[in-house]
């Protein structure tokens, strides 16, 4: 009987939801900048978005150390591809497939990387992978509690002609909802835009605006 390693089956420092939406001119990813230590909001200005190569962005939730490991892995494969100097470029879809194999391989060794990832790339690519290695492409993705709170909102608002700026506003609204309801979410967020041509814009962390807490006063009056 193989002894089960347990250290990676209990995440310690964790990131919450990641959101993504496909738009008519590119793809948008969004997440907050918090890495929680249990219920403690431990690291409040970390980035969960990563650009390993031109035209590709990955974002992840779950165990933050595993996420950093995955970022290093993707950096390495792109570096190896670059050193080949054969003019061949690893596509976002190839990276998505590769990461799915990495996560599936680790779960099959009973030593999972405890993350769920969203992969965005040029050519309007948006994919999602969970810690079991389940991978799919979709016009709207949300991981963690975002799959319950944000995904229905994104699906409801989504349409084929959604522009990237509208996509950003849509994801901001979802992050706002998550900030209201997800105890592991933060007001400080980051957004990444990947245009069809591969132009990547990752914002600096900024605070969500237009937060409405009046309903809390109403609850007190009752």
């Amino acid at each position, binding site marked *: 009987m193989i002894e089960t390693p347990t250290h990676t*089956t209990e995440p310690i420092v964790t990131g919450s939801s990641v959101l993504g939406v496909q738009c008519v001119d590119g793809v948008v990813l969004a997440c907050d900048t918090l890495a929680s230590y249990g219920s403690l909001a431990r690291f409040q200005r970390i980035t969960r978005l990563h650009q390993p190569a031109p035209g590709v962005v990955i974002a992840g939730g779950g165990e933050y150390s595993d996420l950093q490991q995955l970022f290093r892995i993707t950096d390495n494969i792109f570096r190896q591809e670059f050193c080949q100097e054969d003019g061949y470029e690893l596509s976002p879809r190839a990276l998505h497939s590769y990461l799915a194999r990495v996560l599936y391989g680790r779960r*099959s060794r009973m030593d*999972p990387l405890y993350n769920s990832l969203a992969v965005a790339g040029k050519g309007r690519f948006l994919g999602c992978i969970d810690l079991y290695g*389940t991978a*799919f492409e979709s016009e709207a993705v949300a991981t963690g509690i975002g799959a319950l709170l944000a995904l229905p909102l994104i699906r409801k608002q989504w349409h084929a002609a959604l522009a990237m700026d509208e996509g950003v506003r849509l994801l901001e609204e979802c992050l706002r909802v998550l900030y209201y309801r997800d105890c592991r979410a933060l007001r400080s967020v980051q957004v990444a835009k990947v245009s069809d041509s591969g132009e990547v814009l990752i914002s600096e962390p900024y605070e969500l605006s237009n937060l409405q807490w009046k309903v809390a006063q109403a609850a007190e009056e009752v």
Partner: protein
Amino acid sequence: MSHPDPGFVSMSFDSDTQRKIVSHQRTWSPYVDNGGTVLALAGRDYAIVAADTRLSVGFSIPSRNFTKIVQLTDQAVLASAGMGADRQYLHKILRSRLEIYRYQHQKEMSLGAIAQLLSNTLYSRRFFPIYAFNVLGGIDANTGEGFVFGYDAIGSFEKVKVVCSGSGQTLVQPVLDQQLAGRQKYDVPDDQRMASLSLAEAIELTRDVFNSAAERDILTGDALELYAVTASGVRCERFELRRD
């Protein structure tokens, strides 16, 4: 001695087992059930392989468009319900094995050989099973007759005329049995019932049972992918199912 109450933990347990019982530590499961229903049906000169496209995790639906079917050759199509990641793995290695076979033998693998290959592949993981419930459908290259194979997760398989697996199995299989392979109709002999079913009728029946399964099974729905295998090749059709 194996009383679950920590107060009854005896010193006869090894320390690791004891720690697990006392801390109520649950071991992480590498499996997840992503639901979904798959079906295969064989007529005299065709086979149908169908599956819904919903990917469920518990009560949520991460994807409404997640294919469960892979076309292996011009004569064989495979559909798998169960765990999404295991299915993707299984489909990937089967496709690569068939590619190698093509290079080595300069021909496609026959339906019977694919059926056995799938069984061996599943059984090679007997003690860490691939959590996928497969139905394989296709036509015999020599006779042109349709055949389907049903599997369990560890490779037991059976050559049949009609089979359904996955979360809607309990809803769909009895209907198929009664309509196509049942023993309750005395007007038409068993062997003629399947033979007299045309492809168009079979597609209609498949659509009906998937619509029925989607009514009651929350893990089945969104869309139906249907592969019809005939002597002239494989045709894929898509129909909407209820999305709630």
